[in-house]
């Protein structure tokens, strides 16, 4: 479903991604780990189409389409969702109004009529329950005055509402207590199907106790330098990244 080949990207003239390859098939969960500053958020941003980043080489195919050729909102329409590492506040815009606009914009992109209010409300209720988002939060302005954990749950709520084909979670687990972590993980597990896939960026293996990945990748210096199974995450937790970096530098 997603095929990234030789991806290179820079920001403000500084190269961050240096030939990244990754293939994700429907039904899979991929975890991406790596030290701070290795380019994880950059990868997520490039996939979502943030324009600060310039792609200088490589290709990204998403369900047969050249993803890099699409505007961010078109990518969303095609089914790409990014749960932001730092969700943005939009004062005065209620969460409900925001997500309703989003749902209907995506539907419009797909040639579907706007969702009837009744249908939308029941959809909303169901997804709200999934991530235990209180009705109060749903009526508040988007992310404004939300705690860190509430913001992250709100991201998963939005993802649940939009039902993407590819969900990219950028450190959604950072700063969450164990209960919130479970809620977030549960949300992902409920959404998971044979038709969609997730790329989960994380620092900590503990998230992977709840969201079980099919693959674990280590991102370093703008490339994926090691790929393994779930056990790799445990090993990283135990030994840190240094041994991988050494291994990688010896090779090159």
């Amino acid at each position, binding site marked *: 479903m997603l095929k990234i080949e030789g991806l290179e990207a820079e920001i403000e003239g500084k190269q961050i991604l240096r030939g990244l390859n990754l293939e994700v098939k429907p039904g899979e969960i991929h975890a991406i780990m790596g030290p701070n500053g290795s380019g994880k958020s950059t990868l997520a941003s490039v996939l*979502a*189409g*943030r*324009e*600060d980043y310039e792609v200088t080489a490589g290709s990204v195919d998403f369900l047969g389409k050249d993803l890099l050729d699409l*505007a*961010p*909102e078109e*990518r*969303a*329409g095609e089914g790409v*969702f*990014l749960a*932001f590492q730092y*969700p*943005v506040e*939009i*004062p*005065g*815009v209620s969460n409900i*109004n*925001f*997500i309703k*606009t*989003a749902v209907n*914009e*995506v539907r419009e*992109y797909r040639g579907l009529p706007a969702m009837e209010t009744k249908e939308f409300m029941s959809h909303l209720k169901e997804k709200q329950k999934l991530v235990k988002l209180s009705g109060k939060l749903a009526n508040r*302005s988007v992310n404004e005055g939300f705690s860190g954990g509430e913001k992250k749950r709100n991201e998963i709520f*939005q993802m649940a509402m*939009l039902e993407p084909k590819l969900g990219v979670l950028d450190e959604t687990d950072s700063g969450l207590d164990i209960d919130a972590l479970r809620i977030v993980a549960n949300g992902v597990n409920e959404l998971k199907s044979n038709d969609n896939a997730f790329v989960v960026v994380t620092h900590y293996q503990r998230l992977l106790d709840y969201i079980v990945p099919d693959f674990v990748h280590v991102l370093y210096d703008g490339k994926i330098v090691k790929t393994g199974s779930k056990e790799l995450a445990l090993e990283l937790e135990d030994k840190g990244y240094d041994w991988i970096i050494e291994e990688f530098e010896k090779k090159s």
Partner: protein
Amino acid sequence: MSMSDEDKIIEEATSGEYKYGFVSNIDSELAQKGLTEETIRFISNKKNEPEWLLEWRLKAFELWKGMEEPNWAHVSYPKPNFQDIIYYAAPKPKKKYESLDEVDPEILKTFERLGVPINEQKALAGVAVDVVMDSVSVATTFKEKLSELGIIFCSFSEAVKEYPELIKKYIGSVVPQADNFYSALNSAVFSDGSFCYIPKGVRCPMELSTYFRINEANTGQFERTLIVAEEGSYVSYLEGCTAPQRDENQLHAAVVEIVAMKDSEVKYSTVQNWYPGDKKGRGGIYNFVTKRGLCAEENSKISWTQVETGSAVTWKYPSCILKGDNSVGEFFSVAVTNNMQQADTGTKMIHLGKNTKSTIVSKGISAGKSQNSYRGLVKVAKGAKGARNFSQCDSLLIGDRCGAHTFPYIECQNKSAKVEHEATTSKIGEDQLFYCNQRGIKTDKAIGLIVNGFCKNVMDNLPMEFAIEAKKLLEISLEGSVG
């Protein structure tokens, strides 16, 4: 995103063409160009006015001749040539309309193109619409229902004929002829407008609404509105307008006067969408308006809510004179400027009575190369013991070639008064736009969403039906050529 890319997006998103530009074909009768005593006699004669009103106009004209155009506002524009303006245009006099079926279909079509089908409004919202088209009222609805309650809602001309005592008593009582250059001009040449009278103890059961529209090329517009709320009464009054696209600058200098007696409340809401000129700023309306309310007696309340998206140059300060003890004045404003528009708007709250209270919430949004200024005066007189004011002025910038300015003036002569002022300036962030885009929301829509969020606590004060229209208008006025 590089700087120039960002500029381009913002440019596209903020350089929308005016969507309501068109001219409709309605026969009119014009006055001679220019302003002399003759012009004023012509207007007064056309309208079959009584002698006292002619005298009143002529006195205003005398005063006006000795006055100069104000130039303290943060706006610049070529001064209108007052001798090059046609001061009167009326649709050819036709018989009185009992129902909308009799109204010129052209006019009805015009309203339909504006998305304001009168019929639908009547049915859906129970709004009585007094349509003012090029200075003369052509349709008045719901009149009977209102008259059962003793409410008067009619054109100003009609009021002059039917209720001369009321007009004589109140005209110029809140905005004197010599108040300022434009109010003097208006007093001399006003063509028509609306009159609204709510008798003692009556709660007006529906929103009273007037749609103004400039339709005759090169015609100055001088509307006059007078609202009187007697003791214990309540009325919510709406005024909105759009105008057809044209090349020459058009002057609009309206006067609105509100008088609120003991325990009464007047809510005045307006959506203003005069033609702002093209992207280069050519041909827009000059909107120099004097709006003032007098809380004449105790416990009265006047509330101004305005959404300003149009005009090339706006100069407008709806104000409250809080004379009665415990009276309340409110001002909620959204002013949007785009392209080359200039707006200098705000309010004056004059506290005279004891324990008077005022609230000011102003939201300025500037895009393109526009300039948007808030100018507000809070004045607490010696006798205004316990007066309180709270002002909040927020500015939102879209792009970095526009300007937002805040000029709050406070004059406080009573130590027991409490005056608070808060101000913020923010920019629509690329982060916010990208967040919206990532959720599938196009940039135009996203700007609309963010701007409406920014204005929320003002929009919440608009009557429901009006708020929906106003929200749409905000989106449209900031919409780009994208898509």
